[in-house]
């Protein structure tokens, strides 16, 4: 099919995955209203709503697959039809699907409103997909708010839990604060260049038609807003509290998919609108990357709560990804997409196991509680060990290859200090990841028979096994996905004019 962007009806086709997912979210909400109260599922049973939501994700995936074969004519000011968008759509859909699959027992166990939870999660995903797919700063802002507001509610979803409510409020207040920076940045950039459209901004800068004080200030405010969204140090303060307090499926979703969407938007704006200003923004990104790699890794060393440890770990992974943005060449960009996919899978998987271990009252979060888990639940513990090793970047796992690509990208841009820092902090991170594995396999259970009964129904186990298989597969045969990522970035690269790619300081 060919889309003609001179006709506004064809915009609907271009947004087909987002539309399908929005409609599915409403269907889930409606079905939830009519089934939930009358017929609450017995504790531990997977809710049928979960399957409905998964079907919605699947349909959106089909629509996204269909978009791969679509040709376009005419320029679109709103929606990008490039490989970068489609690849990141896969990323968000995978993150959402995995979160749904792995949250089956949690929601009914904690008696959360399943319909609302799933539909909010899907609407947040719609926001993410627009974030990755738009070329207009105003639409981008709307998408970010769509995602964020859904995420605030998802965080505060567990009304019976004080910590959840507190986390939701904190997230909301600080999120609003950062949205202000973003919006102000957009306004200033518009003031400086006369456009909110990314290619037009780039063209204006290229032509020397921009009023630079406004533009530079706007760009700085945008960087601040995005740094908050991707939880870059020192804008990360909200992250540990929110991640720890939120219901664990939300934490998994936020640490993986929300962060990935923020990165995708960050990369698109800075690579597509400000490539000519690389020299002025890359030092700031460089410092953000260095701080974000070092500090959370050090703090994670002294954490005894595994969920909080994973929160700091997720901040640290953001640092590794910022290295890719600082490097800004093709390898680094493809590595970033590769990393985001691996990271989404392993991080959601790891938090799913945390969900299982924590038990009904969510009390078992300390590292000591993992003692003896290995020998009473060998399958789950083996999978968790794979995720931990991958998070640490152990050879043979996808996490290792992802780090290798990032390092390669950094080296291609001669960012030696960042590359060495990345390698060193990776070694430090082994300590806190392997400590959990050590407790699982080498230490006795805190209480006799602590892990003999765990709540992990079949869909969840299958999801975990599949995720672990993906991690191992990508660790051994990474080149297929990496080539895909390269092609995706290639499309994106052409959109920015190909000037930037390969450029290094």
């Amino acid at each position, binding site marked *: 099919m060919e889309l003609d962007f001179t006709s506004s009806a064809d915009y609907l086709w271009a947004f087909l995955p987002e539309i399908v997912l929005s409609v599915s979210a409403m269907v889930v909400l409606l079905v939830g209203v009519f089934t939930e109260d009358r017929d609450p599922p017995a504790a531990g049973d997977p809710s049928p709503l979960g399957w409905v939501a998964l079907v919605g994700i699947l349909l959106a995936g089909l629509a996204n697959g269909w978009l791969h074969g679509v040709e376009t004519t005419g320029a679109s000011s709103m929606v990008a039809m490039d490989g970068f968008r489609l690849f990141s759509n896969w990323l968000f859909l995978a993150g959402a699907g995995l979160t749904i699959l792995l949250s089956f027992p949690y929601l009914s166990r904690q008696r959360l409103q399943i319909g609302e939870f799933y539909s909010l999660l899907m609407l947040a995903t719609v926001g993410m997909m627009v974030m990755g797919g738009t070329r207009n700063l105003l639409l981008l802002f709307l998408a970010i708010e769509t995602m964020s507001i859904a995420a605030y509610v998802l965080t505060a979803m567990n009304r019976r839990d004080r910590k959840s409510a507190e986390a939701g409020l904190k997230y909301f207040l600080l999120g609003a604060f950062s949205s202000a920076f973003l919006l102000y940045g957009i306004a200033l950039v518009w003031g400086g260049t006369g456009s909110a459209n990314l290619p037009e901004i780039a063209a204006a800068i290229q032509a020397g038609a921009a009023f630079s004080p406004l533009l530079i200030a706007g760009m700085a405010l945008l960087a601040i807003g995005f740094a908050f969204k991707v939880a870059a140090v020192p804008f990360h303060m909200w992250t540990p509290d929110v991640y720890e307090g939120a219901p664990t499926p939300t934490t998994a979703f936020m640490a993986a998919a929300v962060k990935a969407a923020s990165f995708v938007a960050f990369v698109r704006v800075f690579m597509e609108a400000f490539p000519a200003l690389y020299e002025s923004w890359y030092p*700031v990104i460089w410092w953000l990357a260095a701080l974000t790699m070092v500090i959370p890794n*050090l703090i994670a060393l002294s954490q005894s709560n595994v969920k909080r440890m994973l929160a700091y770990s997720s901040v640290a992974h953001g640092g590794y990804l910022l290295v890719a943005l600082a490097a800004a060449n093709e390898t680094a960009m493809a590595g970033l997409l590769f990393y985001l996919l691996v990271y989404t899978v392993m991080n959601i998987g790891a938090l799913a196991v945390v969900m299982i271990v924590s038990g009904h009252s969510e009390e078992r979060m300390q590292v000591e509680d993992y003692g003896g888990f290995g020998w009473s639940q060998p399958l789950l513990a083996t999978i968790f060990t794979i995720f931990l090793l991958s998070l640490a970047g152990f050879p043979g796992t996808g996490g290792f290859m992802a780090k290798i690509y990032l390092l390669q990208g950094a080296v291609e841009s001669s960012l030696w200090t960042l590359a060495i820092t990345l390698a060193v902090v990776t070694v430090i991170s082994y300590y806190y990841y392997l400590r959990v594995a050590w407790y699982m396999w080498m230490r006795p259970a805190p209480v006799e028979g602590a892990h003999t009964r765990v709540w992990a129904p079949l869909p969840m186990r299958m999801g975990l096994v599949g995720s672990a298989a993906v991690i191992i597969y990508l660790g051994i045969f990474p080149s297929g996905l990496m080539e895909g990522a390269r092609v995706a970035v290639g499309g994106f690269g052409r959109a920015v004019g190909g000037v930037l790619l390969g450029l290094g300081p």
Partner: protein
Amino acid sequence: MISLGFISAGSIQAGGAGGFDPLLPGLILLLPLLGFALNGALALVSGRRSADRVRNSIPEEDHTAGSVPLTHSLPTWIGPGVLLGAFVLTAINFVRLLGVELTEPVIRSYWSWMPTGTLSVDAAIQLDQLSMIMMMVITGVGFLIHVFSVGYMKEDPGYPRYFAYLNLFVFFMLVLVAGANFPVMFVGWEGVGLCSYLLIGFWFQDREKADAGKKAFIVNRVGDFGLLMAMFLLFATFGTLDYGAIFAAAPDTLLYGGGIVTAITLFLLLGAVGKSAQIPLYVWLPDAMAGPTPVSALIHAATMVTAGVYLVARASVLFALAPVSAAAVATIGALTALFAATIALKQYDIKKVLAYSTVSQLGFMFMGVGVGAYAAGVFHLMTHAFFKALLFLGAGAVIHSMHHALHSTHKDWDAQDMRNMGGLRRFMPITWITMWAATLAIAGIWPFAGFFSKDEIIWYVGTAGAFSGLYVVLWGIALAAAVLTAFYMTRMMIMTFHGPNRTGEPESRHLHEAPLNMTIPLGILAVLSVFGGWINVPGSVRESFFGGFGVLPMSDWLDRWLAPVTQSADAVRASQLGAYADVAPVGGGHVVWGAIATVMALVVVIVTARYFLSQPIQPAHEDGEPDRGIGKVLYNKWYVDELYDAIIVRPLIGVSRWCWRVIDRVLIDGTVNAVGSVSKGVGWFGSLFQTGQVNTYAFILALSALAVLGAFIF
């Protein structure tokens, strides 16, 4: 095997040329690996269940009565089944190879294993006469021992684990002999070492047995160092590690008797000495008897310990080019043969006697390959696999029976001490007869298998006396060791099976013959021990009246069979040394000395039997240890373990204690801990800002935003 020999004779003489197309050679290796995977999975399941039982203090199930769980019934079929499959495939290929005159080995390369720069190593296997005959022995004898194990181990809770290890061992052993280059061989070499360690320490709850496993593993590391050094030197010299390329280039590249080839072969010899338990590294093998007895039969008699002999035969051209190393091989072999035989004279543990006997027989094989009689060495390796496996399995049947008998009244006697046995032939007639066949074979009595192989080695050592006086001495040592062999083996048989029974009246009622699945392997191995030597009857012996083998259609079959493998080594020796003298150092031909040897052995057997039958033997607890004279020295194995302990182990422990206290604890740990504490301290400082207060966060956020803005603007 015998009949296959007959087929071959005709076809080789007919000179059938043409290609040898092996049938699924990779599957021969894969089948045991598959068995390992399946049995290993079952072992995990069963291990988890028995851990549950221990936790909930439910007693072990008694598998002898009632239903047997799947984890115990499946390995019975999988374990020996995969070996049977591998053996059938090997046999098919062997028969195919018989009809072909193969001068170059067939190489199957599966994937490029180490494609790095100048070094390129393929995961490849090589099928030729030497590797095929080794694979026949490994899978054939291996299969019989697997079958025997079903009966021997079925009451053990670790039954599936046992078969998993045993299958894995066979896989690695096949990799060792089939590898087409040194690195692949090394994988097998290390793999069998690992399996040996796992199986020696199979009953790891027993501290002593676990320690025996460790001892074997550590002593072998010394040998592995030699093998690795040899590989480095080979790569430095030839730029490749493939057998074919190295052995083809060796005669032209290396100087005869030169420093490089001598160094390479001496390092190879160090590796072989470790694996094949020769002086000075033999000490691990007697301790290795701590493992289950079928393991001793398979690993520590028939297959793994012969890897050193295989290595020398495989690298025969290198040893032919290094006369000093070859002489070292023969000398070490001769000394080990005699030394181990003297220790065996005074041992009371039936498995210890067999262990030292194995060390001694391996010494004979080393002598053979050391004087250039590679086929004779491999020939003795093969016949030894038959009769020593039989002896070990028979000893296993005896121990099994003794254990039951002693267990029935909870008598705390040693089930392996021969002084506690006596007169077992009445209870175990099949074991008795078959073990006598093996004893006559190992004693070297015509026409049993061992006669031909041992006689051939001694003959070649003697004829090598033409080159150097050293070999005349070695020849004398070999004859002495052969006489001692006849003595200690007869002593073992008499103490175990003859004379009055010493187990005690209530116990003896529980002595019994082994079940069919244990006696059938004994019977097959007995047949091989009797006739197995006929495949390589020397021409002169065959034609003589004494030989009485005029009816055999061929002579020297194995020599001719292995000729393509050893021809380049033979050519080097022939051009450098000239032909062997076909006469013993003190005169007399092959037939004369064959007759002398067999008569001597027979006389020793008869005299020893009469002596021990007339001698009253006390059960172990009444007898005590020999306390004076040479008997005490021999009983204590020449105090070699004590010597090693004093000059190697204790100083080493002292040094490592010091390293641990000073270097490790103070320097390394101190540094690492300091790094850790500093990191944690910084982390703790960082987390101080994490107050949980939103206003703090907002404040820091605003400050940071100002910093970023500043960075952009200035």
